[in-house]
């Protein structure tokens, strides 16, 4: 059951970084919405700006080099851009939580699990240490960690990668946030562990009616757990829509190329994998016009002159001068 008001509304977000070589736009005019209880994925390859987008929502873009120069982030109708650090701290962990890619480095190695979890809980709730610890153990049990009463007293290095990631999820969910940002949560995990952790996340999400923004490059994971997809390339959103639409009917040539080049287990071996020609352009030397034009097999003259904008209906939008109807991806495989 979704309400009409989006839980998170990112509108025209633009973030710049000042580097040695000059000012670069990591993301440019990014817009997307998340409804309560919905799972959306932000997909793209390295450098597309997906991590910067989720960090911006959390207010975690490192501020001397980075800066939000335009756009708004509305959470429950409240503007987050320009929020003070103090105000943000009340939100983080409480209403919006984030989990990161590297479970090795995301947990403090010199503190016990219990210490770290209790800290988070007591930060946002006026409870005693004992009560917080009980809640922590409960959360560990919820994420599927066996014998949580003893595990909670261990240090991160005593747990495996999959366990650590679950602890991170437990920590993130301990205050019942309404939005969870997951930045490549399973990329560093083995494929069987990944399956376990993703299943856990999906289950918890349904149980807590929590919205999830999953940042990833793994389209397989997206297909299995998300409802909507936002595809980013070179700092811009180039396509978005429901997961069924995007996979069955990708309109942007980049999305099409991406879907075709994923190695999947096929019925028959094929001699060569389909690829996307060329490389991602350097953000300091962007081509004029459409950023994908140099690699696009459907490029036309107008592609070098103007930048396309997102157009389409609610179920499927694409930013391309040439979006073609393509036969279903699954047929092409």
């Amino acid at each position, binding site marked *: 059951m979704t309400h009409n008001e989006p839980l998170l509304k990112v509108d025209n977000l633009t973030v710049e970084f000042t580097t*040695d070589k000059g000012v670069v736009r990591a993301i440019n005019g990014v817009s997307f919405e998340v409804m309560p209880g919905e799972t959306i994925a932000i997909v793209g390859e390295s450098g597309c700006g997906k991590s910067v987008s989720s960090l911006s929502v959390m207010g975690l873009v490192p501020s001397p080099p980075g800066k939000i120069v335009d756009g708004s982030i509305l959470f429950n109708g409240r503007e987050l851009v320009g929020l003070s650090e103090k105000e943000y701290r009340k939100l983080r962990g409480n209403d919006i939580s984030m989990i990161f890619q590297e479970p090795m480095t995301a947990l403090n190695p010199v503190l016990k699990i219990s210490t770290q979890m209790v800290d988070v809980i007591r930060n946002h709730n006026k409870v005693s240490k004992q009560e917080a610890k009980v809640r922590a153990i409960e959360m560990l049990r919820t994420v599927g960690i066996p014998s949580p009463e003893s595990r909670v007293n261990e240090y991160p290095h005593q747990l495996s990668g999959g366990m650590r990631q679950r602890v991170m999820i437990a920590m993130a969910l301990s205050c019942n946030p309404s939005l969870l940002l997951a930045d490549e949560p399973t990329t560093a995990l083995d494929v069987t562990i990944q399956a376990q952790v993703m299943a856990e996340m999906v289950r918890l999400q349904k149980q807590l009616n929590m919205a999830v923004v999953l940042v990833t490059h793994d389209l397989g994971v997206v297909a299995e757990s998300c409802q909507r997809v936002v595809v980013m390339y070179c700092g811009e959103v180039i396509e978005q829509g429901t997961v069924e639409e995007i996979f069955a009917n990708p309109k942007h040539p980049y999305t099409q190329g991406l879907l075709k080049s994923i190695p999947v287990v096929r019925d028959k071996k094929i001699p060569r994998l389909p*690829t996307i*020609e*060329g*490389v991602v*352009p*350097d953000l300091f*030397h962007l*081509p004029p016009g459409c950023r994908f034009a*140099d690699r696009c097999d459907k490029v036309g003259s107008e592609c070098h002159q103007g930048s396309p904008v997102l157009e389409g209906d609610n179920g499927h939008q694409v930013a391309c001068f040439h979006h073609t109807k393509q036969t279903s991806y699954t047929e092409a495989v």
Partner: protein
Amino acid sequence: MTDVLSVQEIEKPQKRESLWSKAFEKFTRDRLGMVSLFVVSLYLFVAILVWLGVIAQQWDELLASGQMGPTAEYWFGTTINGQDIFQRAIYSTKTAFEVGLIVALFATAIGAVAGSFMGYYSGTVLDEFILWIMNSIDCVPYFLLVAAIAVALDGNPYSMHIAMMFAFWTGTARVVRGEVIKLKNMEFTEAAHSLGVPTYKIIFKHLMPNTTHILLVEMTLLFITAIKSEVILSFLGLGIKDSISWGLMISEASGEVTAGHFCNFFAASGMLFVLVLAFNMFSDSLQDALDPRKV
């Protein structure tokens, strides 16, 4: 074959962008670093002039009749013997640079080679043996060590330099060893093994060059340490004998200060202070510029 270098890359100017040029560019943007480099260069210029015999050649001569405060002729005044303090202070710059450069270069070189070997052979008998030697050297109180070597090399004008080298190489060796241990586990080292590259080449061509950013910073630190050390050693009478240095000047000045004559003291310590401060700041900026993580 898929052409990987995109169109933009070919049109970019063919400027070769080595790690050094990147570091250089980064350094030039650091204002404090540039100022300190300027100050250090100024000192170096003075030292070279002295070495070439252009200025301050009369530092030892008795030019005046006795002790004087600063005048138009003698900017920093004269010592109790009538020597020109200004010339003595300037000449000491050469002494300081001599000590600093010789010790820094040699101690770093010895430390680099020793550290690289130890790092590569870490855990083996060779490593343990050199570590044991290093620890033994470090155990001996520094000034006793220098005194012992100075006595042993009695008469050698460079006995102090040699003593310092002997004491200082251990610090560099330790730091290099740590870095090499890290580098030796990286895949490019494995690649060299897989190609059949002989061991000595792996150490000198692959591992040591990747520690140069550390070595450069170590050199600057040793330069400072050597100069400061010399001050104390000369003060104790273990340092420079036939020449003049800021340390000797301060040592001489300790008698004069009680009589109310501060020129000698201020001249020497002032010049020393500015050089050490500038060099330290330069070293910090250098470290920032060379940080390989920011490359």
